[in-house]
């Protein structure tokens, strides 16, 4: 196979696998992909009730602010929690067929990304209902953030998926870590509520800058240049880590599965 033919195949492979994942995920479920919306919406509603209605958080447009971070978080956390299992859950693909295995986590992340993209118009409606409106900056801001998030997730999931085959405890550990990350990241609270002298906490947290930038973009229609460099930096770090671990370990996958 020459090179363009190979790329053609890669494209088809991703397309077919993605189509498979999407059609399988909600097969036989009545509400189908609506669930991918209901989940973050329900969570946001709970936070809204608890923090805004009962505890009187003084944050304007709190529900929209919640959703602006909750939708990307949903994409992120679904992918990361599934990450350790991507290879382990597909033993036949790993053991029986020779094809680029790195496609397995990629397809999983893309699938979650598509759900996120479907949620964006819904988010926009919440904005409009609350007297806010999307900005033109979305046109290039969203693709940029999609690429950065995708690359980070891909690195994280390659790492988790590869290492988990050798250390099975990683799956459980990951769930705890994502839970901690949720509270250590301004999602249910906003950056504005945190004194500026503590911002360094979010800068050393490899996950937080991503969601800070998503909220700035989706809610305030600005690119947050304070945190964007950190997003880029962590993305490079995650990708590098993920790919190098995968490269080192993937030859042994079929032996341990």
């Amino acid at each position, binding site marked *: 196979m020459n090179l363009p033919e190979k790329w*053609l*195949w890669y494209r088809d*492979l991703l397309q077919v696998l993605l189509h498979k994942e999407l*059609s*399988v995920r909600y097969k036989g479920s009545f509400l189908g992909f609506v669930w991918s919306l209901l989940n973050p919406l329900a969570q946001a509603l709970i936070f809204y009730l608890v923090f805004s209605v009962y505890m009187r958080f003084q944050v304007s447009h709190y529900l929209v602010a919640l959703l602006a971070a909750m939708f990307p978080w949903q994409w992120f956390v679904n992918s990361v929690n599934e990450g350790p299992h991507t290879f382990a859950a597909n033993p036949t693909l790993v053991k029986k067929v*020779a094809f680029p295995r790195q496609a397995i986590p990629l397809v999983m992340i893309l699938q979650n990304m598509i759900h996120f993209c479907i949620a964006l118009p819904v988010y926009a409606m919440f904005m409009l209902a609350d007297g806010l409106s999307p900005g033109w900056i979305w046109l290039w801001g969203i693709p940029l953030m999609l690429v950065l998030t995708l690359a980070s997730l891909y690195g994280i999931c390659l790492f988790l998926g590869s290492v988990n085959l050798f*250390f099975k*405890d990683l799956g459980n550990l990951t769930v705890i870590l994502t839970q901690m990350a949720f509270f250590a990241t301004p999602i249910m609270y906003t950056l504005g509520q945190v004194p500026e002298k503590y911002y360094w906490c979010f800068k050393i947290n490899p996950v937080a800058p991503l969601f800070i930038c998503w909220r700035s973009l989706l809610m305030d229609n600005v690119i947050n240049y304070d945190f964007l460099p950190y997003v880029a930096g962590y993305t490079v770090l995650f990708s590098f880590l993920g790919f190098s671990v995968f490269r080192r370990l993937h030859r042994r996958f079929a*032996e*341990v599965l």
Partner: protein
Amino acid sequence: MRDAAVVFEDVWKSYPSYTHVTGGIKGFLFHLPQALKGLRGRRTALEGLSFEIGRGENFGFIGHNGAGKSTILGLIAGVLSPDKGKVEVNDRVSPLLELGAGFHPELSGRVNILLNGVLLGLTREEVLEHEEKIIEFAGLGEFIDMPVRTYSSGMYAKLGFSVVANLKPEILLLDEILAVGDITFQHKCKAVFEEFRKKPDVTMVLVSHSLDNVVEVCDRAAWIEGKKVRMIGEAKEVVAAYKAVNERNSRGCGVTLEREAIPAHIGTNRVELNYSDALGVLSPRSSKEVLRINNQAVLLTTYPEAFLHKGGGEYELLDIAHNLRKLGLVADVYSPFSKSLANYGTVIHFSVNASGLPIVEAVKNTGKKLILWPNFWTSKVAANENAIATRLADLADIIVFKSHTEKTNFENVVSIYAEKALIIPTAVAPIFIDSTPENLFRKSFDLNEYLVWVGIFEPRKNQLGVINVLRDLELPIVFIGNYRDEAYYRACKAAAPDHFMFLEPMEQASDILRAAIRESRLYLEPTLEPAGKSVIEAAISGARVLVADQPWEREHLGRFAVYVNPKDAASIREGVRLALTTPVDPEQVQALAQKHLMPQVLDRLVSCISETA
């Protein structure tokens, strides 16, 4: 030489012994020294293999299980990588290893064709180009648009095969020559292989235990042994050399060797089984069938001196064997005329007698499935019997109880795993529902209405007690049976009024005995120990029955029988009065028959025997 499709250059491959690592972090930390050693320790599977397979060539690998053949296939397929050396594969590989690997059960056959094709390395367009051909070849009709989880295993394999066979394979990897599906489809498979064999651009790599297949299909072959290539060359010559060495080693145990030759990792294949003296030559279509045929032969054993005093237990054994045969199994009773053990998949051992232990141990040593049939309904156990029962229960894979009462009694003595226990209701021969000539017994003995008691005379049977209570009864009681305790028998006769009758024992299940039971107003057996199987036979043949109120009786007869306290005169009198005034409910007889009649009652035993281990 044509250009090479596959080149192995001094290939080494080892597998990790990741035991401590895969055990998780905890296991890793708790066993740190071993774990670190484990990280480094690897078992080698191949040691410096070199060979070349030309494009269009048909190449076979032979060798024992574990020689490394599957590892070679994995290396060619690209799912494994060598530790050292070079594996060069110049064409697209189509592994025909596991048909339908990568199929998703929820998706339709059509979508799965695309999925599978793309996974095999084709673009979407290329797959769609061949889609119609694949669908036609698979011949699944409208099933092609149904989710593959609804497919039978045959259909699944057909579709998998069709995908691989029709998508321009370049290097075809085969673990055994596959012939899947029905006969027509198998012919199609064969035709396809023949076509591939001749095509100059299709390379076939075959791993097989069927040496005939290798000779038939392959141009060249390699014999892998001890992690190395032992011989490489013309297929015919390599096979001949392999045969020469192995036949020398295996003479005399052909059957076991053939069976070992079924590799566990193969889903569907064709295996030739050669039962030289038993079942003739079978060519089952799948390995599943191989196992079933094997397991369907049953040997029935008991302790050696059992047939010196042929009694109820021995008749039961013969009856079971007879009825298992009716259900389509091969069932032989151990004797000079039964076949040797290798021919049977399962052994059923009757009784928990100490002298039977050596037989059971010998059976177990060969790894056969062992079903223990304790016949253990009494609750009295001798001390040494206790130990034997424990040992036998340990050896058994399944223990058959004929009632929960028996199971409970047994468990009082021996603790067993719950999953070993199998309850097969007391089996009654179908002859008991056969009709008898009208009034045969009444005419023969010039009787009108009467009560009947069939069975041996002894104190624990309680005949004397009943006679003393019922001596004033208008209707006669007819006792049929021998005595074990002569004094007791005499006492019974002496106590009985003149119109009671004492008859000699009659042939088991004979017309006259069945008539005696069937024509009676009431069948009595209110014994002090659990009643015998005869009560169920009587009930099924339609007699009214009166028994002691004990768990065994309650479990078997439910609401059908009249229950009395065998030691209480008033209770017996009341029971007899009740029994004589209430008619038998035919529906309940029917229900009892359904539960106990052979051969159906043995169905669960048969499925237990047929189950692959």
